[in-house]
């Protein structure tokens, strides 16, 4: 009987071996995958087990953490001026995850970043609770406030204006303001209770057609309309199509302009004044014929190349992801229309702020960024952003020509009262982009601008106001968007002095 018993013993040994192999597989090979699985609640328990680090603007935290009861998540997120800062901070909810800076910098904020290891180890020995690091942003509270309030005031009656503002420091690429309306308060669903659930559901696009959770500053694309004429002008200058902005013979096109391979004629709002404009006049009067013609002459390939130098056709990471703006390959009529910011041309407010910034910074486009520094709980710097050049869409000479033209737009055009600032060179461009088939919906009112002082250009802004509920003919960049841009620029300049 002993022989079969030995075999049975070996068999039982194999069963045990199978168990050992399996636990090694699960707890060693698969361990990381299982430990960080999205359904594994421990991930979020850990995320909220310690007070999160803060997001800092102008030295002041715009976020906070508060201890909560009755849940396995110990701390909940709080926000100061939540709706105003939501396009920057995003949300960090116990129940609904996180996005934007809260998501991108989660490792530092929750204190799990490898670079905080030393800090955490010290804390462990001194018995202190693990803490998260802080994220110091480049934002400018005054500019953000001007932008957000400006957008709120652009609404008519009870309607909230839909729109966005982005302001950049052209010298460095630092984001100064990123506002979006209508907005939401990320505090309202930071927990995981009943009321948080209700707030979250109410904000859903299906329940709120205004889509308040959409970050219009970075993640919505609009037809840029006439503001795009700056890019077309830059392409014409860079390709030698135009070298004198006051020589009307270089920009002579039929007005109204007949699209190539088509019978469609496009007129200009300024009418006959656009018959023989110089480039400067064409920008001031926003002549469609001139820029349709220039875009057609430069050609699709070169237009794409210039647009891409300004940042089109590529997502930007601030490090929060910004949607890619689009200047597509197109046929001749499509390319001509794209040259005046219509057809399939689409841009984010961030993109158009980058266009203004590149011109203001004498043709050099700096990489946009919104995180200046990551700081450990003991206030030592983990990482600091060094400004970097993204591209050189314009030569300094051509950039200065465009600056002259854009400054004429402000000093001679309809946006003079709203945007001009005493003692400072201000350049800009209005835009009223058609929206919908046959311009069926309310247009988008655009304004992009910059200010230049003796220290170079401290601010470039892009403002877009969607359907503000205004009467149709009142919608224009100079009425709705330019005042907001003016306020943002003034806020930044006040801070500079």
């Amino acid at each position, binding site marked *: *009987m*002993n*022989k*079969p*018993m*030995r*075999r*049975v*013993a070996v068999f*039982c*040994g194999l*069963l*045990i071996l*199978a*168990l*050992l192999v*399996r*636990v*090694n597989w*699960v*707890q*060693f090979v*698969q*361990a*990381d*995958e*299982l*430990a960080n*699985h999205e*359904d*594994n*609640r*421990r991930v979020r*328990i850990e995320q909220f087990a310690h007070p999160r680090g803060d997001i800092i603007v102008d030295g002041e935290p715009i976020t906070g953490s508060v201890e909560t009861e009755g849940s*396995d998540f110990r701390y909940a997120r709080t926000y100061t001026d939540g709706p105003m800062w939501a396009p920057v901070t995003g949300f960090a909810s116990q129940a609904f995850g996180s996005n934007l800076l809260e998501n991108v910098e989660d490792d530092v904020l929750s204190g799990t970043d490898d670079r905080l290891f030393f800090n955490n180890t010290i804390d462990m020995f001194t018995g202190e609770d693990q803490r998260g690091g802080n994220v110091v942003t480049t934002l400018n509270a005054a500019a953000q406030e001007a932008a957000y309030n400006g957008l709120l005031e652009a609404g008519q009656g009870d309607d909230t204006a839909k729109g966005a503002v982005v302001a950049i420091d052209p010298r460095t690429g630092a984001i100064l303001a990123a506002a979006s309306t209508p907005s939401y308060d990320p505090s309202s669903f930071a927990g995981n209770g009943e009321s948080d659930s209700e707030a979250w559901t109410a904000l859903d696009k299906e329940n709120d057609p205004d889509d308040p959770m959409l970050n219009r500053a970075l993640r919505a694309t609009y037809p840029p309309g006439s503001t795009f004429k700056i890019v077309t002008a830059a392409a014409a200058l860079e390709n030698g199509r135009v070298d004198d902005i006051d020589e009307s013979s270089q920009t002579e096109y039929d007005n109204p302009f007949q699209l190539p391979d088509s019978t469609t004629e496009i007129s200009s709002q300024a009418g006959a004044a656009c018959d023989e404009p110089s480039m400067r006049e064409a920008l001031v009067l926003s002549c469609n014929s001139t820029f349709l013609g220039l875009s057609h002459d430069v050609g699709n390939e070169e237009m794409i190349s210039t647009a891409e130098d300004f940042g089109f056709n590529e997502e930007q990471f601030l490090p929060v992801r910004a949607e890619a703006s689009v200047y597509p390959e197109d046929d001749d009529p499509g390319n001509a229309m794209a040259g005046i910011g219509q057809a399939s041309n689409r841009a984010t407010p961030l993109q158009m702020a980058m266009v203004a910034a590149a011109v203001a910074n004498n043709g050099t486009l700096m990489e946009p960024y919104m995180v200046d520094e990551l700081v450990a709980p003991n206030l030592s710097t983990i990482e600091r952003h060094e400004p970097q050049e993204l591209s050189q869409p314009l030569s300094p000479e051509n950039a200065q020509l465009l600056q002259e033209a854009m400054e004429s737009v402000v000093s001679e055009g309809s946006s003079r009262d709203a945007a001009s600032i005493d003692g400072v060179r201000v350049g800009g461009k209005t835009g009223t982009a058609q929206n919908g088939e046959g311009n069926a919906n309310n247009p988008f009112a655009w304004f992009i601008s910059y200010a230049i002082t003796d220290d170079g250009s401290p601010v470039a802004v892009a403002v877009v106001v969607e359907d503000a509920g205004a009467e149709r003919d009142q919608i224009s960049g100079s009425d709705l968007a330019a005042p907001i841009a003016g306020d943002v620029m003034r806020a930044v300049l006040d801070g500079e002095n």
Partner: protein
Amino acid sequence: MSSTSNTTVSTAGPPSRRNTELAMLVFAVLVPVLAYANVGLAKDESLPAGMLGYGLGLGLMAGVAHLVVRRWAPYADPLMLPLATLLNGLGLVLIWRLDQEPEITRPALGGPMAADQLLWSVVGVALFLGVLIFLKDHRILQRYTYISMVVALLLLISPMIPGLGDEVNGARIWIRIPGLGGLQPAEFAKIVMVVFFAGYLMVKRDALALASRRVMGIYLPRGRDLGPILAVWGVSLMILVFETDLGTSLLFFGAFVIMLYVATERTSWIIFGVLLSASGAVFVASTNQHVGDRVENWLNPLARINDGVTETAQVMYSFGSGGLFGSGLGQGYSRLIGGIAAKSDYILATVGEELGLAGMMAVILLYALLIERGMRTALAARDPFGKLLAMGLSGAFALQVFVVAGGVTGVIPLTGMTMPFLAQGGSSVIANWALIAVLLRISDTARKPAPAPAPSLDAEQTQVVRA
């Protein structure tokens, strides 16, 4: 095997190894007591209030058991009692540790369970002592072969009796005794059934082994000899179908096939057994909803069901989050498994998460060691009944460990059985202490020095005549 370390045994026989057992028992008590302190420090940063009482209780239990073994089974295996004590102690710590989680210790879920479990452990050890004291020789059990069969069948059928049986989580494996609470009769049936198998096979092994036809190199049993194996298969299948208890049926059938193979030394029985259990399992898995769900769950452990995270997935997350060294006792989140199952069926998840892969392997090896001691007892036993009985008990124990641990870790589909000694549940801990007691009795008999030859009566009579 030096005899110098022994004090209680005459130099003539093999060493009794009782002092080894005592030394091991000190560890077996010390480890859970330290683990208990560890939980308290992790949860409240203070030593738990009940620590002294708990340590003394466990120590007293182990001490009394040791003294009884020393007196009534002096040659018994020295490792089994410490192993059982250690597993039982660790189980108590784990259950107490899970009692500290309010979510799974609500009154609706039965409240805290460590105190009850301690009580059941005391009852288990008392039964252990009773078996050692009153069962002088395991061969006495052979007399009760057919009574055992009847008792085992009654125990197995009892959960199906209306009014007595109780369905929990889709499996009908409980009976409810008023005033006493629930009982899992299968745990006791396991031992009684093995007694029956051992007695039956002891008698029939020659018939089963020799009367067979040889077809294509393997011995096929005669048709009428197939009767018993088909009967046991039928009973197992009935357990599966009517009680939807995959584990118990696998356990019974597996233990029977192992014992049949050991008794007859015929490989053909194994082939028949595997074929029968495989066909039975496939049939039930494809027709029974509950078993089918378990299989589905096993194939896709992380899949969400009704947009909820399943218990199986939670168990996997526990293991994964534990990693190599675990979160430390008291610092894991195995309560996320939810419900009472975290303390019973899924207790290994807490081991895996809080003690890590290292702790998990250690616990599995403790079981492996216990099984190995059982198998060694079977090899050492001098009588065929003892061999079969020890083999059956340790084989059943091994299968149970594999079926539970394999189910929880995902080697095989999950079944509704509990980890011996470790998991919450009175029936399990009591029955397994009895099982250890029987194994100790067999090993004592096996290692006991052979009695001096009895004086021959013939010789005496001759002397009388001469005188």
